[in-house]
């Protein structure tokens, strides 16, 4: 006998629901409820957030505390709820127009912050509730009421956007490939971090009929032609593949900046300079510029003010500058920046 106990998670008393016959949202609602029921999640530990549109009404048919947000804001709301209540499992049920277009900014940033929420996107490639306008995922060339000669722009590749930066979990499936669909739901629910399931779904009344399909089943067959399931984890997922692509954390980045290596120099090992020897290193004929300070010799060849010059205003290269620096406007810390090369013989 078929196990129908998942129905306790649905508000059956509110049925019949608002969606058209043949719509894919019913399948999404049922399978998500079954997935939750399998895991034993209920209203005590789960909250549902939904957006606007046909798919946004899913929250209202489930026996959970549900938040029905304004257009596009479902992800932000879910993130805030998860932040305040880490004990709750937070699910987002929404559509492609809501998540990809009006909530696109939130999609980028909530996935970047890797908030631990699960997103089920009913991707029917159209704005259904408002009457069938072209959406962000409408394939190029599709005729809709706002693209009468066929959509002229490329669709948004949600899979590419969401997998640009690890960690990520992105699954593409359809309402037709039922077993694959169920497996994706289960894996997404159990994923720690931001997980996104892109469910290719049908909108027969406001998209399918215009494209020449007579029934929802014909659309499902079309999905079967367009997509094929790939085994295991594919990265990246091609546009005609159904599967899961996930990665836990980014490999550690090698720091791009200069690595400063400080070498301790033992004073005993240093060469000893007499004042005459020191005078020799005055910068002339591409020789290095050495100066003495408090019994030590520093190589100041890299100083921009001294370069190629024997002297800079009052300081003379190749000389003991202890007294000069005492009366100079700058402190002695200037000279400590330069490498120590030797000791000065008294």
């Amino acid at each position: 006998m078929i196990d129908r106990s998942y129905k306790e998670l649905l508000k059956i008393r509110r049925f019949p629901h608002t969606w058209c016959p043949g719509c894919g949202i019913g399948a999404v609602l049922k399978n998500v409820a079954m997935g939750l029921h399998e895991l034993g999640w209920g209203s005590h530990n789960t909250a549902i957030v939904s957006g606007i549109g046909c798919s946004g009404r899913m929250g209202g048919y489930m026996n959970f505390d549900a938040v029905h947000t304004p257009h596009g804001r479902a992800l932000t709301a879910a993130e805030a709820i998860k932040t305040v209540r880490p004990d709750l499992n937070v699910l987002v049920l929404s559509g492609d127009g809501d998540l990809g277009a009006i909530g696109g900014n939130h999609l980028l940033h909530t996935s970047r912050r890797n908030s631990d929420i699960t997103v089920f996107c009913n991707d029917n490639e159209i704005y259904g509730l408002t009457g069938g306008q072209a959406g962000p995922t409408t394939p190029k060339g599709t005729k809709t009421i706002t693209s009468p000669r066929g959509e002229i722009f490329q669709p948004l590749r949600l899979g590419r956007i969401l997998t640009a930066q690890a960690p990520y979990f992105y699954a593409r499936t359809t309402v037709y490939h039922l077993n694959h669909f169920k497996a994706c739901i289960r894996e997404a629910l159990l994923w720690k971090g931001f997980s996104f399931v892109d469910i290719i779904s049908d909108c027969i009344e406001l998209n399918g009929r215009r494209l020449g399909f007579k029934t929802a089943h014909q659309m499902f067959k079309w999905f079967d032609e367009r997509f094929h399931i790939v085994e295991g984890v594919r990265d990246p997922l091609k546009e005609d593949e159904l599967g899961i692509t996930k990665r836990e954390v980014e490999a550690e980045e090698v720091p791009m900046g200069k690595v400063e290596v400080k070498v301790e120099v033992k004073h005993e090992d240093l060469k000893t300079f007499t004042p005459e020897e020191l005078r020799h290193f005055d910068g002339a004929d591409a020789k290095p510029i050495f100066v003495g300070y408090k019994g030590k010799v520093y190589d100041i060849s890299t100083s921009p003010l001294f370069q190629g010059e024997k002297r800079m205003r009052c300081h003379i290269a190749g000389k003991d500058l202890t007294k000069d620096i005492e009366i100079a406007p700058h402190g002695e810390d200037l000279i400590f920046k330069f490498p120590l090369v030797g000791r000065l013989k008294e």
Partner: protein
Amino acid sequence: MKRFLSGNEAIFQGAIRAGAGYYAGYPISPASEILQQAALYSEEEPQFRFLQAEDEIAAAIATISASLAGVKSFTATSGPGFTLMQEALGWGHVVEAPCVFVNSMRVGPSTGMPTQPAQSDLLQIKGGSAGDYYPIAFYPNSVEESFRLTVTAFNAAEESLSPVILLADAFLSHLYEMADLGAIEVEVAPRTKEPLGRDQRLFTGTAHDKLGNVKTSDPVIYREWLRELRERHLRVADKYPLYEYFPCKSSETLLIAFGITSRIISPLKERFSIFRPIRIYPVLERELKEITQSYRHIIVIEGNDGQYASWTECAICRKVMRVPCLGGGFKLQWIQSQIEERLKGR
């Protein structure tokens, strides 16, 4: 302990005293200091959660969602950010989420004059979102009062089950004064909203009946819902009829000013009577009627082109004179000369 602190800091401390557990915001002058303090405080106090959102839309939605999830929450912004938050403000009224929106006003419209003080977002308190709603708004004029009114705003939010607006201006936000916040005794209202994950409720921005069933074509249910919302808000607003009145016996003129303008004109107390509304919205109709009837001339001095003046005219059914302090120019001498000019020959 007495301390030298700014208006923004007092607002933040007020929120903490009121029991706030969540802050979401986006940087904008002159409210950024509140965001910075929230970031610092969340490091010290892990119970306090903080989100620097990707925009003000997300910040406002996160604030309301966090409130639904079960903590007192608030956000702070300035005029342009408050414009983006309008969507969430309307939503917050329908889903009955108690929270506080701080708006530190600067010269608008659009980017305006960052960061010159203004008082030009009064109409935005109540007119920015679609449909009818009745927000409560307070406007302090000193650092200490900012602290007190922040707590009052949180209390009013819990009682009215809605977002409450706390106004400030660039002047007040950056005004430093001595205050002893620890010694101020305030009453803190308890949390009135049941957190998420306890029940099977639906929080929706769509019109709904008391059980949370979506009802989009029933005028009776909608009217009933709106009447209840209005009555609840007016009842809570009546609890806080906050104003200040300095009568001057020899004067036939009443000056009406609030926020920073009332501070600037306070030296005129000797010559004119001054009325300062603290609850800006709903307008203090009863109090205005009572006080204004004994004066021949009424002059409203405000940092915008007559927004409060027009509300006053509606409330008292009488023409008033206006002194608009525009473009961030609040000079006592100029205001005085404008008053003289208005009163000449009358």
